[in-house]
């Protein structure tokens, strides 16, 4: 009798394993996954204008990209960041480990804080940039554009630390814009006013918790919220309900991409090529060559790429520089070639727009040093503006300017203003 029961049990276990396998195999029928928020986004995505974000079906725009952009700047925008790659890094050596892997000094990152950082291979070339969340003294979350599990695991040898990829297990939302604080407060996240820029804290939500950080990719007042996937829809609904009168609008990437450019932020594999994707080796970039030199702390001890980076600095081997440009006129200079004295090719614009906030024609460009570094005068961009099947070729003056292109006091004001 007991034997028969255990046999039956074993059989049901096998059945369960087979079912799980069948389910896992079935992914080939859905090339683009939905995120945990997809039911809400599908309902609002009237344009059906999707793109592939790391294997997920993500919206370029849901309804109207202009209105979506202005939601970021004048009201509040809700952007689904679930497809972002997320790693959970935990253990007694987590701090020391991350200090070795990433550029910035992790010992200075206190629990409950977030910093923007980057990490390099042994040759000092940037593998990716991302945000590092310190959830507790021994627990971190690393968010990035690309995937790095082999690199992170190989680097963990010798450290008492566990690295786990948790992209699909954690849903993420960015709530950005002047009314974002008021929405969170009205939604009942008590104490949200205490979060300063780059602070994070846990709040109760739907029988569980949500991690909210005062971070974002817009240069505006804003927050990012992370929650287990089963609490995703209730979180969305809670924010939407609280934001009804404060103009909350779900947005797609086109609007966000404008806001990030105004904020002067770079995007991996758009403004620079990450080291594990660069087929052509002259496309590799060191942090100093893409404006991330500020992250390097030569005094913090060893980190991946340190020797190569310091040698390139001391031997003046840095060949590129990423700069912000202000270009005359109002025609965006997307992917335009940058010239010195209108004739010598010295670089390329990777992102450009006419900024509604700055009321300027702005761009990010990678230039070959010394241009953009010590020689910043007499730079020009050649814009090919296609107008009804004719190119209007424009040679416009470009001025190197500091980033961000816009600075909003509300982003850092404490407590945040009640818009």
């Amino acid at each position, binding site marked *: 009798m007991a034997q028969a029961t255990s046999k039956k049990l074993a059989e049901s276990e096998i059945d369960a394993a087979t079912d799980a396998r069948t389910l896992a195999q079935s992914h080939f029928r859905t090339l683009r996954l939905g995120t945990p928020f997809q039911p809400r986004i599908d309902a609002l995505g009237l344009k059906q204008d999707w793109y592939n974000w790391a294997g997920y079906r993500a919206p370029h725009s849901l309804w109207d990209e202009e209105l979506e952009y202005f939601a970021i700047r004048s009201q509040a925008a809700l952007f689904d960041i679930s497809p972002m790659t997320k790693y959970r890094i935990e253990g007694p050596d987590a701090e020391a480990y991350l200090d070795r892997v990433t550029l910035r000094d992790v010992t200075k990152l206190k629990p409950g804080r977030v910093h923007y950082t980057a990490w390099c291979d042994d040759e000092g070339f940037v593998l990716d940039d991302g945000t590092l969340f310190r959830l507790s003294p021994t627990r971190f979350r690393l968010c990035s554009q690309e995937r790095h599990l082999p690199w992170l695991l190989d680097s963990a040898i010798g450290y008492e630390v566990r690295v786990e990829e948790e992209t699909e297990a954690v849903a993420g939302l960015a709530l950005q814009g002047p009314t974002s604080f008021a929405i969170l407060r009205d939604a009942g996240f008590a104490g949200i006013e205490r979060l300063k820029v780059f602070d994070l804290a846990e709040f109760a939500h739907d029988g569980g918790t949500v991690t909210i950080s005062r971070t974002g990719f817009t240069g505006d007042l804003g927050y990012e919220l992370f929650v287990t996937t089963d609490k995703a829809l209730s979180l969305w609904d809670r924010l939407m309900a609280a934001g009804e009168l404060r103009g909350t609008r779900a947005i797609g990437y086109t609007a966000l991409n404008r806001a990030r450019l105004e904020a002067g932020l770079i995007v991996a594999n758009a403004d620079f090529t990450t080291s594990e994707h660069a087929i052509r*080796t002259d496309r590799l970039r060191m942090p100093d060559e893409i404006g991330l030199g500020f992250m390097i702390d030569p005094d913090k001890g060893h980190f991946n790429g340190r020797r190569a980076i310091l040698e390139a600095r001391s031997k003046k081997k840095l060949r590129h520089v990423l700069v912000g440009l202000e270009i005359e006129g109002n025609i965006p200079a997307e992917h335009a070639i940058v010239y010195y004295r209108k004739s010598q090719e010295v670089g390329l614009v990777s992102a450009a727009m006419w900024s509604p906030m700055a009321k300027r024609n702005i761009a990010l460009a990678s230039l070959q040093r010394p241009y953009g570094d010590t020689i910043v005068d007499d730079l020009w961009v050649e814009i090919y503006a296609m107008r009804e099947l004719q190119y209007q070729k424009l040679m416009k003056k470009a001025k190197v300017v500091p980033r961000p292109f816009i600075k909003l006091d509300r982003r850092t004001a404490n407590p945040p203003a009640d818009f």
Partner: protein
Amino acid sequence: MKAWDAIVIGGGHNGLVNACYLQRAGLDVLVVEKNDWVGGAATSRELTPGFLYSNCSYVCSLFRPEIMRDLELPRFGLQVISYEGGAVFTRDGDYLANYRDHDAHRREFTRFSKRDAEAYDRYSRDVTRQCRFIQPLLMRTAPDPTSFKPRDLGELLYLGKKFAGLSAEEMALTLRFWTMSIADFLDEYFETDVIKANFALSGIIGTALGPMSPGTAYVLLHHYMGEVDGSVGAWGYARGGMGAVTKALAASFKASGGTIRTGAEVDHVLIRNGKAKGVVLAGGEEIYGKLVISNADVKRTFLKLVDEKELPDIFLRRVRNFKIRGSSGKVNIALDSLPEFPALPKDSPVYRADMHFTDSIERMERAYDDWKAGRWSADPFLDMMIPTTLDPTMAPPGKHFMSCFVQYAPPKIDGRDWTDTDRGGFAESVISQIAQYSPGFRNRIVHMEVRTPREIEAEVGLTEGNIFQGELTFDQLLFNRPVPGYAQYRSPVGGLYMCGSSTHPGGGVMGAPGRNAAAEILRDLAKPTLHMSPAHDVI
């Protein structure tokens, strides 16, 4: 008596490519083929009513787009149907599939290892970097490093510059890549058996080496440089079987005025005063030609078709030592219905792609151990596909043609020739492997063609049945292929050229040797090559 401008021995794809280019340059060209059909190892044959077999080569990807363009092959009927990925079945009833979509590919790997799934990008970057380095060399005549001719120096300089253009790290990787085993190379990126087995397949196909033998990493590269109509790395079925490639070539050749004689086996090359004057057929008939170009492999050409006395000793010794070892066989099967694979979901695209049953490098190496011992592999490695899932022209409605490339099969069994009983045992090793994954498979078989190295050599004329006319190991590539000092398609005999896969850049249905040889011949004749469009890089 008529003397042709050029006689091409062998109507395989390289012979036909070569003949087409020469004919289009204004030469009067004759192709002599021993079989009653053209195609060599790129043929489609109806051996049982209603079924067409791609009975040697079975997929198309490496064939050079410049050749398709110059010889107007689409106009003459060539269509290549690309297919999705493929799969390795695992012994525990699962499978690992390859999908063309990058994210589906990653998710599939995640089922076996999250780490390996994310290692693919770096692997892919490194292999692509190596392809970008080697690929432009395919369509160029390899330089002769012992020569001081300006052209050879120029080519050496080109090679040197390409090499010097690499960073120290890349140079190290390149040298390692050319000499490493595929197993060691994959260990640098992956940790999971089935994932490594999945990639290792391309490193051993057609090669008398195991996945742990040095030099097999390069063989993988050779298989990565293909495309279908501009889609890099894609593989496809030629509609109507691989014979469609040579059928289109033959049609193009004839349309430009060329002549083909089938059923005309060459006994030897006619040589007078150290110069080729034509060929003598098996029946004794003499055909005269100003030039003779051999599509046969280098051993068959110089050890069977040319009198040894005409050749320098060192050349002869090197030809004898050229590695052209038989390592594979082929089983072509006519099926009365589509086989089922319970491990696969019924709507899986894998049914239309290549299927494998060897889920570890260890098993591949054990299969190779059998080859070393002079036996066919008890647990062979199969590259199996059912082209009729995408090409209905090859079988009657509802019925299917299955192509099984089988490795390893030695050229001799325990030192003696293959017998029909051996061949039966070899076939059984294949059928029983498939039947393990496809219940009822045996009952679906209506006809079977079993080809061991013995049959391939006898029919196609490939020495030992080696599909590449010589191993693609680095000691036999570039200016060392087939013999140092004779890597530029010429031979010690005046007027006798080589154009088969024994020459640079090697085997596969690529056509590059045939085209490169034509360029050299036209150079010797001081004829223009304007009809040869410049080669471009695919990647």
